[in-house]
Every structure is written in C-alpha cells, then in structure tokens.
C-alpha cells in the first residue's frame, strides 16, 4: 500500500498539485488518469521520490518516506520498480546488461544467478533470446517490455508505470497492460499506472483516480466510471468523438 497525505506542489507561481490525499492498494493496478497538465506525472514523480513536494507525506506501507535515513531509503529503492514513458533504457548497454544493471549494482549474486534472473524476466515479458540486442534494435513495444523486465528484476513490491502505452498501437498497448496486470497479481505488488489511455482504464483499472486541475476529482473502479455523475470525468473519458458516438448509439439501442 502506498499512501499520500495532503500533497501540495507548486512550480513558481503555479500550483500543480493542490492538496491530494490518496491510497493505492496492494495487489491492484491503481490508475491515475487526467488531462495533460492535470498534475498526474508530477504526482507520480512525487510518489516515487523524484520530486519533493512543498508539503505532505508519503507512506510505503508503514514507512514514512520523508523520515527515512539514507540506508532505509536505499533498502526501499530496491523494492521499487519503475517503467518510464520513454522506457529509459541505457542506449550503450544491451538488453541483457540493461536488465542486469540493478542486480550488478545492488546484489552480490553470482554471475549464474544473475543470468538466471535476467533470463526469467525476459521470458516473463516474452522476449526470450533478445539478450544481445541493443535498445536501438528494438521496437517501441519491445523497449517497454524490456523496461518492465528491468523494473521487476529486483522483485519489487511497488511498481510505477508512467504512460506505459504512449506511442504504442492498440494491440501492443493491450499486451503491455496485460503484462503489468499479470505481474501485479502474480507478485501481489502495489502498481500505480499513470495513463490517459481509456483502453487501459477499461482493461485493468481496478482503482481509478481522476485528477483535474491538481485535485483528486474522482475515485472509483472502472465499472463505476460509466455510472459516475462527475461531468469533468465524463468529458475526459468521452472526449473522443468515436467513443461519444458509441455511447450515443448504446443509449439509443437501450431506448
């Protein structure tokens, strides 16, 4: 479980996050949705510790993030995995080296043990045999999968995904969604996904938090979205004319 309490963050004059309190549950895919500029990326970066909020607290289970000393923080970091929007794979390293990097840096496993773990992670994301390739030789979807493999290599308890489907075709996006959802369930981890892909919301949105103008405007599950009376949420979800048409047609057919 990850809990954020009264998070506030401003950049200069602009208040990007205006007091958000939220709980992300263990064993679930927790989605943060919202328009561009709604503050979801900033919130994700605050949760993962890349940006310090002006005020507020973050709890990782029972651990207060901002009260940890360097050693405790290091131990926590090893339990956190993150998939970045652009995958953030190290260009000069092969797939194998990219995934092995956290193992090399923080563990004292033997070479064989590390290789086994790397191979397992690659197999888990469906990229067995691609060890020697470099990021530039991979498609966008494959890069995301390598990013996931690297994020889970240390068996994290918390997984953060920033726009995992950006730039991917719908079929590959679905594959990535299923992969993240599957890993969340298998390992019973707390997964937080920042997205504005409505397919993801409908596929894997166990809890969905809608941010609007730096505030938590709505929270519920994917099945609650259609029943919600929140106008901002509806405007956001059905912004696409295609979806709006489908909704209208569904409404007409239901009479």
């Amino acid at each position, binding site marked *: 479980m990850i809990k954020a309490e009264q998070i506030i963050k401003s950049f200069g004059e602009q208040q990007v996050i205006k007091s958000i309190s939220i709980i992300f549950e263990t064993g679930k895919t927790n989605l943060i949705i919202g328009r561009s500029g709604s503050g979801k990326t900033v919130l994700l*970066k605050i949760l*993962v*510790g*890349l940006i310090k909020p002006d005020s507020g607290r973050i709890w990782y289970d029972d651990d207060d993030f901002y009260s940890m000393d360097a050693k405790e*923080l*290091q131990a926590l*970091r*090893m339990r*956190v*995995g*993150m998939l*970045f*929007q*652009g995958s*953030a794979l*190290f*260009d000069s390293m092969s797939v194998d080296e990219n995934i092995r*990097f*956290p193992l*090399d*840096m*923080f563990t004292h496993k033997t070479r064989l043990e590390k290789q086994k773990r790397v191979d397992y992670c690659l197999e888990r994301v469906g990229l067995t045999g691609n060890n020697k390739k470099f990021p530039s030789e991979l498609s966008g979807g494959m890069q995301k999968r390598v990013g996931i493999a690297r994020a889970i290599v*240390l068996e994290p308890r918390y997984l*953060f995904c920033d726009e995992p489907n950006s730039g991917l075709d719908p079929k590959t996006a679905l594959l990535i969604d299923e992969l993240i959802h599957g890993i969340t369930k298998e390992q019973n981890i707390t997964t937080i996904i920042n997205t504005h892909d409505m397919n993801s919301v409908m596929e894997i949105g166990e809890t969905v938090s809608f941010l609007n103008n730096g505030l938590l405007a709505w929270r519920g599950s994917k099945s609650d979205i259609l029943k919600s009376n929140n106008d901002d949420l509806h405007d956001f979800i059905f912004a696409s004319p295609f979806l709006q048409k489908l909704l209208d047609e569904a409404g007409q057919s239901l009479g």
Partner: protein
Amino acid sequence: MKFLEDLGRFILLIKHGLVRPPNWRMYARELVRQMFDIGNGSIVIIGLIAIFIGAVTAVQFLYQLGNTLIPTWYIGYIVRDSTIIELAPTISCLVLAGKVGSNMASEIGGMRQKEHIDAMEVMGVNTPSYLIIPKILAALLVIPLLVIIAAFVSIVGGYLASVGGGFMNTQEYVRGLRSFFLPYNLWMMLIKAAVFSFILTSVSCFQGYYVKGGSVELGKASTNAVVVSNILILVADYLIALMFTT
C-alpha cells in the same frame, strides 16, 4: 546571484557524489571506461597540437633572439620551460575542455533528457557518485599523463623545428634542454594538469546534469561547459602561477 546559486549547487552536487559506492566493481568498470575514452580519444589531437606548440615556440624565439647576444642554445631551455610550466598543461586542457568536456556535458545531459538519470535514481543509484565522480577521477588520472606526453612531444617539436630547420645543431638544443632545470617546474605542471582536469570535468558534468528542455538547451549546456571551463582554467592558471612563482 546566479553565480552564487550555481556555485552552491555545484558544491552540493560534488559533495552528494562523494559517498561509498554500493558496488566497487561497477564503479571501477565505469572508471576504466572513462579513462579509456578520455585517453584513447584525445592522445592524437594532444600530440598533434603539442608538436606544433613546440615548433612554433622554437621558431618564434629564434626570431626574437635573432639579433641579441643571447646564445641560440637557450632555445632548448626556453622551449622546455615554457612547455612544462605553461603550454603543455594549459593548451592541452583548453583543448580537452572543448573535446572531453563538451562530450561529458552532452552525455550526461542526454541521459537527463532521456530519463536515464531518473531511472537510476529510482533504482537507488547515487547518480552524482556513479556518473560524475568516475569521470573526474578518470580525468585526474589520465589528463596529467596526456600533459606529460604533450610536454615531451612539444620538446620534440621544438627540436624538429630548430634542428630540422637548420637553425642549430642537436648538441646546442640538448645543451639548452639540460640547462637550468628545476624539478619543481614539473610539479607545477602536474598540479596545473590536475586542477585543470578537475575543472573541465566537474564543470562539464555539472552543466550536463542540470540541463532542462530539449536539444537546444543541451547544445547550450555543452557550449557553456566549454566556455566556463576555459575561463576557470585560465583563472586557475593565473592563481597557480602566482602561488608557485612569487
């Protein structure tokens, strides 16, 4: 005000990087990679510049001493000392600021823009320690060696210009080289090389580490790395000269 803010951030960045690495082997590997990049990538350009520096120094001093009572064998002495005290460390490091410094600023800045630094931070890697300190250490180890090579090549350049050009014979040049030698000057050269190495790598890494925006900002950071390094190298050169010669 901006200068003080940057200075504060620079000091904090270096201080933040000075921690015990979690895995010495990874850091050692990065150190060796950096040493290879700096040394292997710079030796030809440093050698080329050094040979001409020595040759030009010899030819110009021959011209200046032409109608004086100072014997021509002094050329060896002048080339040696001007090379050791000033030209080898300063010119080499000014050139390396352009080559190595801009490369480091671009590399780290590119990593910042592609979220590589964020990815490492999330993993728990102390990025100043892993990305910056090995570069500074590599430069501190390799650049003084390059400067020693530059000094040697420059003296050879002076020999080729003065003896090869028919202005004097080998014995005269060597006599000059062996006259009035102070080992202290070699220390001054090495200290300059070490200080300049620190300046050019740390300033360049700092510029790259805090880059924001896109490719235009990355280009600016790279340019700033060279300009600021060069200015600081020249200021440091003056201060070291003042401390060691007065």
